[in-house]
């Protein structure tokens, strides 16, 4: 039984770290311009296609060593997805910067439909698959049972942690991070003090998209299959994770992702798979009742 519990923890943590990475995209954008970027799930989906293309192209040129393929794929996918993030912000959100709050939300939904249909038309609607890149797994004996972790899963957890650390470093220690934090706290004041807030917002979209791209590469490696609709469910889950952890808070997004992943895995293991989504959304409702700002979010202070 111990082995089973531990295996479910690992299942939950891998899934959760991926949720967390995507949740970062939602939470950063919300933190800085107060809108929900519903197209973010689709950005992840696009990155899954880009990753598959990169792997295929590298394979075509005879690059087969796993570290090289992954490095090449990551660089290509993160850069191109970053460009997507930048372009989406320019086309769909920037022109609406000073309109009502609802306008960019509708625009985001439109953008998400455009991306879905664009990928469907250009890549076809079929299920896409990539061959397994990293075979083999680690088998640990725990008490009576055993735990099996594929090397791909270990890689996912490691890469997600690395991605988070890099992001924390950027936000806390660099000039760009300082500008981001300033813009988040008070956009108008930051502008008066000479920060080009429009550019900062663009950077935030690029960073969010890059994190989504990292998740896209990792998920594609792990599950090996995706289609143009893949961004929808995982986007909703990641958004839930962001709200759970406190939207606007970076550690919150990661924590929310992990909690959601582990809760889903343990609930399906102990109770029932049919109702795991019911359980995770009930959890969300409960947390929002007692902490409306989410676990690590800052409460909104309304000045009178």
């Amino acid at each position, binding site marked *: 039984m111990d082995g089973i519990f531990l295996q479910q923890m690992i*299942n939950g943590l891998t899934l959760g770290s991926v949720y967390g990475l995507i949740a970062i995209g939602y939470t950063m954008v919300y933190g800085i311009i107060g809108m929900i970027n519903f197209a973010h799930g689709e950005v992840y989906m696009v990155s899954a296609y880009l990753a598959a293309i990169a792997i295929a192209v590298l394979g075509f040129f005879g690059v087969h060593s796993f570290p090289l393929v992954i490095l090449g794929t990551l660089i290509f996918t993160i850069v191109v997805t970053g460009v997507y993030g930048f372009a989406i912000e320019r086309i769909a959100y920037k022109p609406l910067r000073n309109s009502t709050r609802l306008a960019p939300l509708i625009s985001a939904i439109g953008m998400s439909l455009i991306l879905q249909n664009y990928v469907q038309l250009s890549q076809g609607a079929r299920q896409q*698959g990539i061959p397994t890149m990293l075979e083999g797994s680690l088998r640990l004996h725990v008490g009576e049972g055993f735990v099996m972790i594929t090397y791909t899963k270990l890689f996912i957890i490691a890469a997600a942690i690395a991605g988070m650390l890099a992001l924390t470093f950027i936000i806390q220690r660099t000039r760009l991070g300082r500008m981001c934090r300033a813009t988040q706290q008070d956009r108008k004041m930051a502008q008066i003090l000479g920060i080009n807030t429009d550019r900062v917002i663009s950077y935030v979209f690029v960073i969010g998209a890059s994190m989504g791209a990292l998740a896209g590469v990792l*998920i594609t490696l792990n599950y090996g299959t995706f289609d143009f609709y*893949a961004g929808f469910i995982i986007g909703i889950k990641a958004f839930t994770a962001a709200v759970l952890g406190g939207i606007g808070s970076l550690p919150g997004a990661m924590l929310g992702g992990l909690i959601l992943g582990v809760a889903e895995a*343990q609930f399906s293991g102990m109770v029932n*798979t049919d109702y*795991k989504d019911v359980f995770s959304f009930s959890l969300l409702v409960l947390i929002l009742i007692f902490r409306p700002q989410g676990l690590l979010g800052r409460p909104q202070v309304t000045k009178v």
Partner: protein
Amino acid sequence: MPHKSFNKGVLAFAVASAMSLSSFAYADVVIGVAGPMTGGNAAFGEQLWRGAEQAVADINAAGGINGEKIKLVKADDACEPKQAVAVANRLVDSDKAVAVVGHFCSSSTMPASEVYDEAGIISITPASTNPQVTERGLTGEFRMCGRDDQQGVVAGDYIVDTLKAKKVAVIHDKDTYGQGLADATKMELNKRGVKEVLYEGLTRGEKDFNALVTKIRSTGAEVVYFGGLHAEAGPLVRQMREQGVTAKFVSGDGIVTDEFVGTAGGAQYAKGVLMTFGADPRQIPDGKAVIEKFRANGYEPEGYTLYSYASIQTIAAAFAGAKSTEGAKASAWLKANPVSTVMGKKEFDAKGDLKVSDYVMYEWDDAGKYKQL
């Protein structure tokens, strides 16, 4: 002002009548082909479309139905019940279809067939196997394939007799087709004295079933039966193998496409997977010439392609036999007369089901192909 709006009214009327005239001008027999042309199951939609297209080309080349040419209209339901009703209405109202081949997913076929029945046209589903499809007393509803209560019996018996399994986990995808098939298999297993160790549903569209796989592992199941489609079956079987679950994986006709191997991450995971499907229509001698035609065009008529071809032949035979495209007459003719198709001679019973079903077990090999056992 009043004068101006009067002009607009005349113009609108003219346009409207011109549009309705153009639809009267059709002389062709319009047949709709409805299925998941997009979405996760588009591979099956393509099978339906390819089969129908070839059938129409062949029939038109031989003179059409009662001297009229057949014209196909493609309709995409993406395996979504809501969208299925919308495209069904479009086929009936604006395309003036007199027959429909479709849909694919049982959950789409059922609501859509009610639209067709109300419009008084016949519809033949090449692939929807849920028993309820033909159990609702619709006059014009037929199917070219077997039923899940037949398929489930074949799978259940195979698990008990050949695999001799005592511990069976039954998994489904909470959809009309998947759960219906899983239930039919479960019922047969129980009848044969095997009680399932696990009965759970996963969510369509998700890719991570690791938690469920761990649970399967904890039950010690020797056989996992899955009622669902390849988009979920692939990742499920891969994650089972990755977690060291060696249980035999058995499923139904929802994974009959080469894409299954892709979604499973390669033939090393798909290898050894079993599935029930009608005896390979490509083995039936009647279809030899047609199969050659498909292959000459670089397309392998796998899965439901020939079922779709046979559906068009059946419609054509009914219209020719009844000397009318009226649903009620064509339906009565079909229930009384045998039809010779690319899949051999087919007869329908009063419900619109085939009189003979022929489910057999197939196995995926390590080259990513399936073979009849």
